[in-house]
């Protein structure tokens, strides 16, 4: 079974600064997807960024980028130019590739979450 670990329960950053959230995972699969989700106080789950394991290039979405280290099974999220609206709980998540087969395709395994506080 896959596991996802977020070792930072809480992080804080000053507005306009950069912060990195850590995530490690364990899997025996070679093809899979990794995600970062944002959960603001509204409780809505919002997809921030997605990485496909077979792609060596790190994914970026505007101020959000990842450092994907496949051999080390590490998947960190960097938020640049932090804004007050970035304050939220962030979850790292893993999903099998369709080639893994079975009906469980699509289910997500989540880390414990990291609460990010942004100070003005």
């Amino acid at each position, binding site marked *: 079974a896959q596991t996802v670990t977020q070792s930072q329960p809480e992080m804080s950053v000053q507005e306009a600064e950069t912060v990195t959230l850590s995530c490690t995972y364990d899997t025996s699969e070679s093809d899979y997807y990794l995600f970062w989700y944002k959960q603001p106080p509204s409780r809505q789950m919002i997809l921030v960024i997605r990485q496909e394991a077979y792609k060596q290039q790190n994914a970026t979405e505007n101020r959000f980028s990842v450092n994907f280290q496949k051999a080390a099974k590490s998947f960190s999220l960097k938020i640049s130019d932090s804004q007050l609206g970035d304050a939220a709980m962030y979850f790292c998540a893993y999903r099998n590739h*369709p080639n893994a087969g079975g009906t469980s395709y699509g289910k997500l395994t989540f880390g414990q979450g990291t609460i990010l506080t942004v100070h003005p």
Partner: protein
Amino acid sequence: DAGITQSPRHKVTETGTPVTLRCHQTENHRYMYWYRQDPGHGLRLIHYSYGVKDTDKGEVSDGYSVSRSKTEDFLLTLESATSSQTSVYFCAIKHRVSTEAFFGQGTRLTVV
């Protein structure tokens, strides 16, 4: 939001009573999921469905049952609620085109 609606949004119930949570989707997605969110655990999969009347257990399925008699509705039932089932429950779908997961707004359930 991929047309996902959860009901109710909030519920307080007594220990030992049955509770049913509903997830409704309007876009004909095949895969649907129920997760629970608890502090220190993130979201954990309870049950999932890969088609009408096709369901399977997740990692925390004890004390829960599900039913999917039509594509648009996925019901989660707590047969006899316990205080350990106090949690926030999320329904999700795997989008049939993008394959991304989309979540409902969540249901906060309190068992007293």
